[in-house]
């Protein structure tokens, strides 16, 4: 989730970089005025035999960390790291040298110089080591080139913040351009403010914390509120109460939104797998038990497209989901056409037998894929624009992969609706659905329509597999999990229109997702099934039944 948030902030990053660069300019201008380290004195203190001198020197380094220039910072970091690695050599005259892997250098000027033979390598005391660790982290916050390194340093400082200069976090935040490090710095600032002796600072920190509605913040605020010593000041208590109420309010909104979002995403997935099923069922009265396997084939074709792109056009690999769309549709549709021509066509008017036949086909497909690809989950190289998400409000995270599935389902809905309403094929499909015999009489080739519709339904399921591939585990048996839910959608929605299917898919998705947090996934399924059985009492043909005689 952290990585995801980083990616989601990519858009802001350019702005931040520019802003950060400007701030750097401003700051480096400011830093030139700051007093540079008195390097010789510092080395002298570190080389002193007196423990208090050493501590004094280290504390000085810590205090100077936010103020020094970049070069000073690098120098100090080098000295601190050498000291902690026992690579600081102290000559008898108090002159210091650093024993670097590349050779010994003068500690002040960093010019190559050999340490005298009688120089000693001082061992930092335990107390000195603690400060040394802080110094190292404090310097790294400013100097380290890698964001991960700086993040680690900030976390170290947040853990051991006693004695760290108060302005360090502020200064570092001003110069920081990595959003994640900046967030860690801000969290540290708030954390420090919460326990600041000054009431105004505390109030500001509480308000800042309250503005960031997360479950974690709510817990933190509540534990502070429960602490009688902390909430002794009525102003602090009132601020805490206000902040808690605010956080709770937004958390509730966020929870509601994420419920809606997850329901929408589950419904989209259901729609993709059920739409083809509903069309085929409406047209031919056949339930295709292999529909889940068409989803699985779609996902495997997507994977193959990704592998092919990786081998022949690596620069295109991030766009494999888009490249795969036509390939998946055509290939899965072709499999569907083959199944229709080879099996389904011969079972016309024996729908119960088609159940068994399509089950046999699903068994065959699962095992063919298992033999070819193996049983393990496929490792997709999910493109960066489909990983992570952006936190909108509370703990509600809009994840890109789910958004992809939702958008994909919307597109599929629009395309299918257009096909059914605007094209000749759609007209024929609707005609055959309403009255097969009459459609045949007026010259519609019902067999060809069956074939085309079956292929289209299969292709749609294949696209469902494509949309799922960033969300679900892709393995040979993945299809079996969808099939029963998809049936429920068809039973609930009826076969009259695509709207019925979409409505039922969203309804079942929302019920599943809505009940799950309270009673568990199993109860959600049980309740959904009971609701459907009861609903059939009221509307036996589903929400939107097919028109015409059947």
């Amino acid at each position, binding site marked *: 989730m952290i990585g995801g948030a980083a990616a989601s902030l990519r858009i802001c990053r350019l702005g931040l970089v520019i802003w950060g660069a400007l701030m750097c300019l401003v700051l480096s201008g400011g830093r030139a005025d700051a007093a540079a380290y008195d390097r010789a004195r510092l080395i002298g203190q570190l080389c002193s035999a007196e423990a208090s001198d050493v501590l004094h020197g280290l504390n000085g380094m810590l205090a100077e960390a936010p103020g020094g220039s970049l070069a000073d910072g690098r120098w100090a970091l080098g000295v601190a790291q050498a000291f902690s690695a026992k690579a600081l050599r102290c000559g008898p005259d108090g002159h210091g040298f650093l024993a670097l892997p590349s050779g010994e250098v003068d500690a002040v000027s960093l010019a190559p110089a050999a340490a005298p033979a009688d120089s000693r390598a001082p061992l930092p005391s335990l107390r000195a080591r603690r400060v040394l660790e802080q110094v190292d982290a404090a310097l790294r916050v400013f100097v380290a080139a890698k964001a991960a390194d700086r993040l680690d340093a900030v976390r170290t400082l947040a853990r051991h913040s006693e004695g760290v200069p108060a302005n360090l976090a502020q200064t570092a935040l001003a110069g920081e351009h990595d959003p994640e490090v900046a967030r860690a710095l801000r969290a540290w600032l708030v954390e420090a403010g919460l326990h600041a002796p000054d009431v105004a600072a505390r109030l500001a920190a509480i308000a800042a914390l309250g503005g960031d509605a997360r479950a974690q913040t709510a817990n933190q605020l509540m534990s502070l509120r429960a602490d009688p010593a902390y909430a002794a000041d009525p102003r602090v208590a009132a601020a805490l109460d206000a902040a808690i109420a605010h956080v709770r309010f937004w958390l509730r909104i966020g929870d509601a939104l994420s419920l809606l979002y997850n329901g929408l995403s589950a419904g989209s997935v259901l729609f993709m797998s059920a739409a083809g099923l509903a069309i085929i069922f409406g047209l031919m*009265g056949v*339930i295709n038990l292999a529909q889940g396997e068409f989803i699985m084939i779609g996902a495997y074709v997507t994977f193959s497209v990704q592998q092919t792109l990786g081998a022949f056009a690596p620069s295109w690999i991030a766009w494999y989901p888009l490249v795969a769309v036509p390939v998946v549709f055509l290939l899965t549709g072709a499999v569907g056409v083959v199944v229709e021509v080879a*099996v389904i066509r011969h079972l016309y008017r024996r729908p119960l037998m088609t159940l*068994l036949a399509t089950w046999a*086909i699903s*068994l065959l497909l699962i095992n063919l894929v298992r033999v070819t690809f193996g049983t393990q989950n496929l490792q997709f190289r999910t493109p960066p624009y489909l990983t992570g998400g952006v936190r909108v409000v509370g703990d509600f995270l809009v994840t890109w992969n789910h958004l992809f599935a939702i958008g994909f389902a919307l597109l599929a809905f629009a395309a299918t609706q257009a096909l059914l309403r605007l094209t000749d094929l759609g007209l024929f499909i609707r005609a055959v659905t309403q009255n097969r015999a009459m459609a045949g009489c007026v010259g519609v080739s019902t067999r060809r329509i069956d074939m085309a519709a079956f292929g289209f339904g299969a292709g749609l399921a294949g696209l469902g597999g494509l949309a799922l591939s960033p969300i679900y585990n892709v393995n040979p048996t993945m299809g079996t999990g969808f099939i029963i839910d998809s*049936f429920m959608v068809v039973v609930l929605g009826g076969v009259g229109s695509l709207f019925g299917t979409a409505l039922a898919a969203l309804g079942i998705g929302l019920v599943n997702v809505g009940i799950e947090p309270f009673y*568990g*996934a*199993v109860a959600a399924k049980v309740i959904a099934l009971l609701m459907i059985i009861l609903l059939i009492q009221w509307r036996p043909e589903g929400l939107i039944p097919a028109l015409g005689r059947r």
Partner: protein
Amino acid sequence: MKGEGSTWLAAGLLSLLLVLLPLLGFGLLPGLALPIYAVNLAGQVMCFALLAMAVDLMWGGAGVLSLGHGLFFAFGGYLCAMHLLRSAYAATHKLPDFLLFMGHGGFPSWWRLADSAPLTLLAVLVLPALLAFAFGYVSFRSRVNGVYFSIITQALTYTAMLLMFRNDTGFGGNNGMTGFHAIAGLPAGGLAAAVLLASLSTAAVLAALLGGRALLASRFGRLLRAIRDDEPRLRFLGYDTLWLKLAAWCASATLAAIAGMLYVPQVGIINPSLLDPTLSLEIAVWVAIGGRGGLTGAILGAVLVNVLKFWLSAAAPTLWPFVLALLVLLVVLALPNGLLDLRNRSRAWLLELAPASLPRRRPAR
């Protein structure tokens, strides 16, 4: 009634098996002894045959395909397992692990239901039928039939599987129930118990075959077939098809529950995998392969497919699904009424090949 001859042939073979099982199992015939696993296997296959007959009663009889008979099978099995665990507890005073894991100090009070064997048997005969009645009533009443009905039965079984996979349901969760101590006083897993159970199963199949044939030949059976062929017409004629279908549906559920009750002590364990929709689908596949409508086809299909499955899944595990799938496709496409069709078809084919060489068939009545 078609297939009269095959019924008597099947009944004869079952009777022979019923006689041979104790004789061969205990090695009473010189030089011929059946190992215990073969006895056990025969018993299991007989349970599957009973289960297939339950499905055939509905499918072949009334044209209603259930893809959820695993539910009733498992219902009977769970009731039986409860009784066996209760009697094991009475003997050893050791609680089953799954109750300890869930923090129960003893059996939940309603497990007393399974204390006595007659009461358990009554429960097996009544409770699954009640469940079937409740579900059948709401479904048949709103005229859910055909593919719809099959799909909903499958969803029901799937939901039950999810429910039983949970540990807090109190039936052992995904590990199921095992650790049976004794079956009717005979040590579980012993030869005597195996022979007894296999014989009981065979006897049940025989009884169900004869009873089922009588039922199908009766007025009730004719009405069922009328439902299969044209339910609306029967309704227009004034019959309330709801109750006819419900009666057959409940009888079928009870038959499946009995099969489950006999099956569980033979395998020594029950877990939710019996509720897997795949098993329920496979039952329909046995019936389809054997041939619908006459009950003998169901037995033939169940025996054939399961023996093939036991043999192939040991000999060539990766091959088995392909064989099963191709077998189903072959039967469904080429032999619409299963292997029993082979007899009629082969005659037609032979006649085509050599019209003169076969004796003429008696004209059909």
